[in-house]
């Protein structure tokens, strides 16, 4: 048992024995350390002004990822190297990304700038990146700037971030690696007492035992949602159990039949495997939250919190994913769609927690498409999310799995439409009509700030039509404006 958290900052190990269960990393930086370079813009992980970099060893290599410090619980940085905007310039010399931002006039009011600098710092250190505007805008999707219109920032990124990294962090990389290895231990972390604590067990059994003892505790994986309960609603969450130190949960295994995703595997960690299942699934993954959110947020969390507008469940349900749950009493698995009972209610018993997800791959006769409709292309919550999997035999649909988000209180399958499509011919759009009509009986969507009920219904039908048109090849050359954008942006700058 360890009753401190430890991390690296500026080459020094910092050890804290007093950490509030829901104390945010941003508050720690600004209020406790009085390091005010990192800014609070929104307190909900949507603007990126508070972005810092966390460096961790992944397969022996240093990987820096951007995170929103306003929704990162302080305890969650245990074992990482924390890099903030104050740490980049050395010996009065600007870091290459800082210099490029100055040279290319990338700041105006400057308030968002430290966040941009830190995201660019992680891009600077990223491996396997293609020099293109698309790469840059994908990295910057989580940083809002209201002054510049982004052009000079994107140019600064293109200027600074695509040569081999050569900065103080690469110079002392060996030393950093050694220090992080020294920090890595397999002890359970527990700060506080039985009335209030930040705990991070290192084994599944330890987790089950602790959760059984404290079924009122809040389980946290990436905190990209739970932290909002704190920053926005001022929720009192005295008992926090963070899953981040349980190695068994942090896995992405591609088997012959599909992908096993552990509960703490992040969107970032699963992107490649999802893309290998199907291209539009990979494209969807890139539009979930932002680089910051995908670095912290987990598929397990996206499912476990049961949001009706979660981006991943409709696609995963259409693919036939199954969920694994675990408690001190044992494990069970269930089809993902059965987990969502009603708005705000999931089939999760006391003391039970999500351990993972199995996503079957596509068999030779199956095709898949998914679509996300939102007001803004990047980093927006979907108004409508749709996933389609069709099994085909000689141009006839033998089985359809269709699931939507944003259409009901939970992510939900379109049973009537699915049934109506069985036997439909890809070549004969007249045979699709019943399924289109079926959606009307399958759903009664709500009106909210993202879209009206009528638009949601209409778009749900349009997306089904789009999927069928694309798959059947009866569509005009391109029918998807956003996929077109993806292609356009692939051009190297």
């Amino acid at each position: 048992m360890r009753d401190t958290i430890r991390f690296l900052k500026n080459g020094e190990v910092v050890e804290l024995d007093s950490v509030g269960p829901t104390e945010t990393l941003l508050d720690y930086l600004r209020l406790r350390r009085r390091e005010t370079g990192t800014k609070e813009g929104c307190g909900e992980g949507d603007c990126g002004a508070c972005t810092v970099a966390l460096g961790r060893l992944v397969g022996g290599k240093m990987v820096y990822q951007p995170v929103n410090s306003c929704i990162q619980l302080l305890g969650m940085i245990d074992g990482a190297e924390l890099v903030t905007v104050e740490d980049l310039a050395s010996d009065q010399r600007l870091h290459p990304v800082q210099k490029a931002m100055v040279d290319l006039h990338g700041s105006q009011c400057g308030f968002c700038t430290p966040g941009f600098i830190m995201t660019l710092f992680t891009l600077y250190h990223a491996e396997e990146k293609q020099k293109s505007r698309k790469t840059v805008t994908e990295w910057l999707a989580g940083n809002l700037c209201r002054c510049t219109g982004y052009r000079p920032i994107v140019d600064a990124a293109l200027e600074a971030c695509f040569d081999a990294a050569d900065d103080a962090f690469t110079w002392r990389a060996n030393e950093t690696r050694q220090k992080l290895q020294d920090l890595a231990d397999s002890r359970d972390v527990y700060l506080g007492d039985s009335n209030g604590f930040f705990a991070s067990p290192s084994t599944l059994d330890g987790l089950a035992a602790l959760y059984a003892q404290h079924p009122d505790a809040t389980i946290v994986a990436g905190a990209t949602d739970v932290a909002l309960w704190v920053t926005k609603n001022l929720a009192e969450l005295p008992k926090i159990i963070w899953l981040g130190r349980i190695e068994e949960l942090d896995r992405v295994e591609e088997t012959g039949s599909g992908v096993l995703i552990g509960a703490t595997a992040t969107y970032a960690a699963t992107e490649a495997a999802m893309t290998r299942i199907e291209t539009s699934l990979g494209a969807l993954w890139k539009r979930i939250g932002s680089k910051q959110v995908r670095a912290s947020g987990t598929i397990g969390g996206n499912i476990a919190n049961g949001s009706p507008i979660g981006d991943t469940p409709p696609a995963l349900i259409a693919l036939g994913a199954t969920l694994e749950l675990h408690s001190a009493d044992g494990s069970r698995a269930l089809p993902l769609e059965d987990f969502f009972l009603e708005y705000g209610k999931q089939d999760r018993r006391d003391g039970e927690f999500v351990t993972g997800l199995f996503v079957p791959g596509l068999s030779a006769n199956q095709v898949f498409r998914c679509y996300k409709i939102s007001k803004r292309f990047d980093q927006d919550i979907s108004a409508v999310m749709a996933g389609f999997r069709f099994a085909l035999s000689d141009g006839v649909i033998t089985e359809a799995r269709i699931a939507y988000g944003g259409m009901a209180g939970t992510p939900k399958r379109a049973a009537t439409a699915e049934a109506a499509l069985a036997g439909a011919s890809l070549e004969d759009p007249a045979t699709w009509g019943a399924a289109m009509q079926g959606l009307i009986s399958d759903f009664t969507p709500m009106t909210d700030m993202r879209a009206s009920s009528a638009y949601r219904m209409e778009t749900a039908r349009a997306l089904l039509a789009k999927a069928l048109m694309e798959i059947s090849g009866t569509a005009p050359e391109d029918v998807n404006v956003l996929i077109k954008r993806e292609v356009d942006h692939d051009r190297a700058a």
Partner: protein
Amino acid sequence: MTAPLDQAAMQPPLKTVCKALAHDSAEKHVTGTAAYIDDMVEPTGTLHVVPGWIRQAVRGEVTALDLDDVRQSPGVVAVLTAADVPGTNDCSSAFGDDPVLADGDILFHGQVAFAVVAETRDQARRAAKKVKAEVTSIPPVLTQEDAVAAETTVLPDYQFRRGSPETGMNASQEIVSGSLRIGGQEHFYLEGQIAMAVPQEDGGMLVYSSTQHPTEIQHTVAKVLGVPDALVTAEVRRMGGGFGGKESQANQWASLAALAAHATGRACKIRLDRDDDMIMTGKRHDFRVDWKIGHDGTGKIRAVDMEFLSRCGYSVDLSLGVNDRTLFHADSSYFYPDAVIRSRRLKTDTVSNTAFRGFGGPQGMLAAERMIDAIAIKLGKDPLEIRKLNFYDGERNQTPFGMPVEEYEVMHHLIGQLEESSAYWQRREDVSAFNAENAVLKKGLALTPVKFGISFTLKHLNQAGALVHLYTDGSVHLNHGGTEMGQGLYQKVAQVVAEEFGITLDKVRITATNTSKVPNTGPTAASSGTDLNAMAAKLAAQEIKARITAFLCEQHQCGAEAIHFGDNKVIIGDQSFTLSEIAKQAHMARIQLSHAGFYATPGITWDRDTATGRPFYYFAFGGACAEVTIDTMTGEMTVDRVDILHDVGHSLNPAIDLGQIEGGFVQGMGWLTTEELVWDAQGRLRTHAPSTYKIPTASDIPEEFHVRLYEGTGNPQETIYRSKAVGEPPVMLANAVFCAITDAVASLAPGEVPDLDAPATPEAIMKAVHGMRARKAGQ
């Protein structure tokens, strides 16, 4: 002594102005060392203030307000209500109708009813949620239609009238009419509203405020505390964005911080949570515009009848000037022979709408572009043809308010150049070909002009002061009434002062705007910051130079023409001195090395009662060409390419000006596309955080984005180095995007005008698409 040469030779090459230099704080921005108010070292014992509100209330009388639980909450030092205001409970700019703390009635959802002062901000936030209150429920007036029906306005109706629109309409060959809804816009400055008040002796107050208008902060705090203006000092070094949202809207928070500091005797800081900020502060006015336009059958406008129904919110705030500016720009760049342009300033039970970059102008111009689009669509002509046909020219150059558009040739040249550089006509063919081949995706193209009047239409605001000191080591202290919100004002003014003294920029110390250094200033607004303050600073520097020159002439028995300031030196005949040496000599000779410069814009007149005069010193021009693709199955849209040519006169700093143009355009594009403010049927704003309110991100900027400064002969008026103001005009370049979307939708049913409202969200586009399909079916 050299004989005077011709004017050009007398003019030494410019060393510091007209250069693309980095923002003065650029290095501090990128290293995180630029201090905003929340980053300042807090005085010992600083308390934190959080505004409290009654979440269930929209409009009604407060019949019970129980703050006991709030007071007993951990860390709470004081809880303030209207009864705790020692002076006047009002933070309005002029009209006396904005209570700092609600007094008896709740006037809109989110109105501040009390304020919690606690040891930490977290404690204050938690305490504020513990209020118990009962408020009667009066059915709120929410929409333009509600307000028209209830006959509620914040100000009397107003109009511009020119010629006889009735006769003109009768004489028209064709009349087109329609109605356009234009949404509001949240400023979304990245740094939210914030102020810190530090009590001074004798009841004085020092207030740090993130404000575009320090003088108004000073006056408001003095009024609220009931002390003379001279006891209050307001200061701001920089804002993390303003965009008009900190012109009047900073007053309330500075007042609350000052009230708390007054009540507790301790320094007090208030920083709004993002949701509170978006719920409690005003936004760009949203409009319904009902329009009718008559033309001669070829598209040449004969008469115009427009009515602007503006949702002002619960109080006047800046709605007078904002809605006047809508009328001033309802002509866009087009000559209206006969016109009536009406404005109704509707009162609704919603947050009071306020200044936002463009100040009402963008809405006026967008309506004009819709009318032109409609004429073109009905005639089956290209909208650009109709635009050019109606441009102001040598004969037809009077605006509806009687001011001539003297620089109409600049407008013609600029649009002509853009037409060519954007390959408009070639791309028009490409777009038509694309649309003929594609059933689902449709492209649209538009090229629209910008003509924006520069000056405050409230004449007395067109003045500025600057304070310049030359120290005896040759360094210069610069201060002026303008505020820095990211637009690069401080840098531009510093460049001007460095140029004047012939010194390098590192010798000029830029200092925070402070009401005790330069008093009685106007807001940094109306794009006028540089025009006014750089001129005042230049005059101050010139005066100091003149005194030194006179002293040196006497001492060296030479004429002024023998003395040159340059390269941090003063050249006297064949002798060279450092500026420091000369400053010391002048000081020893008891020459005053400090001066307060003052500038007032010349030649502007405006008689609001007769709606005539010359309210603007000059116009700034620009043009944008946008190409978009829409998906007619889902309403999704991408902006594929944008070409911009913009007139800033002779640029004081091309890098900063380019930044203003690009940033303004993207902000305008957000307003017209993804930024949707949604109120529910009860009158509660549902989009009060970036999770639900979507400003553009990096991937929303067009892949092809060509932005250039127009190379002309400079401002014909004697502005600072013949430059032109650049803050607001670029916002309206984004009209091209909206018109291009209109064009794409219009391709679905030739001859029909799309019923597309702003913002053109996917849903709004689908609504317009449906309308077109229905009308095509009916054709």
